[in-house]
């Protein structure tokens, strides 16, 4: 179970790196989900030792993930409809970049 925590923490770190390094809104969405998957993996020992607490933590985590995907997804759709791009650099420069 210690391995699950270690893998979860590494996945969270990788996801945070993706958040910092990505310049595309879809990649940001995927990086956020990598963080959530890491949290899911790190939650496994809690589910084994205290099932009720772990279960509600899991429900809360998945609810938060669904909420953030709904919001980020809606922002991506609207941004693409308005600017025809999901690239953050391009959006920041007002679409001047080729």
């Amino acid at each position, binding site marked *: 179970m210690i391995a*699950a925590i270690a893998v979860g923490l590494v996945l969270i770190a990788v996801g945070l790196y993706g958040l910092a390094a990505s310049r595309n809104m879809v990649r940001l*969405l995927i990086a956020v989900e990598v963080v959530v998957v890491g949290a899911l993996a790190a939650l496994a020992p809690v*589910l084994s030792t205290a*099932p009720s607490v772990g*279960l509600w933590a899991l429900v809360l985590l*998945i609810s938060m993930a669904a909420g953030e995907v*709904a919001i980020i997804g809606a922002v991506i*759709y609207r941004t693409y409809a308005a600017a025809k791009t999901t690239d953050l650099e391009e959006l920041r420069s007002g679409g001047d970049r080729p």
Partner: protein
Amino acid sequence: MFMEYPVLAVALIFGVLAVLVKDNAVAALSLAFSAATVAGYYALAGLVVASFLVFVVYIGSVILMVMVTASMYGGFFDYPRRYKAAVAVLAVVAALLLWALIPQAPPPQVGQELQPNFDLLALIAALLVSSLVVAIEVAKRA
């Protein structure tokens, strides 16, 4: 626990691939594999309710929406057909291997206090899926 380290290693590899791969749709696919492997780890540990939640609610609604979004703004469909067929065959083989291995795990233990929560979990699943549908509709009409 049986198969603990290989399963977690697979989840880690796919999670890292999801961030490092260039193609959006392939990254979303790697993310789905990583989440499915974590759910498989829950199943191997005998955590049935948690595995159900991750497989049905998380992968079935959240990851599905991520994959649809990534496919819309990715490039997966530019890949040759034989590449897609090879990926599909690999996924089926991995699923069959997991299917063969899971019965060797210890039998699932569902605590007494978790039994009445199944209805609530189904309700939460329905609420989450409907909230995602509403989000898409709002995004389309705004």
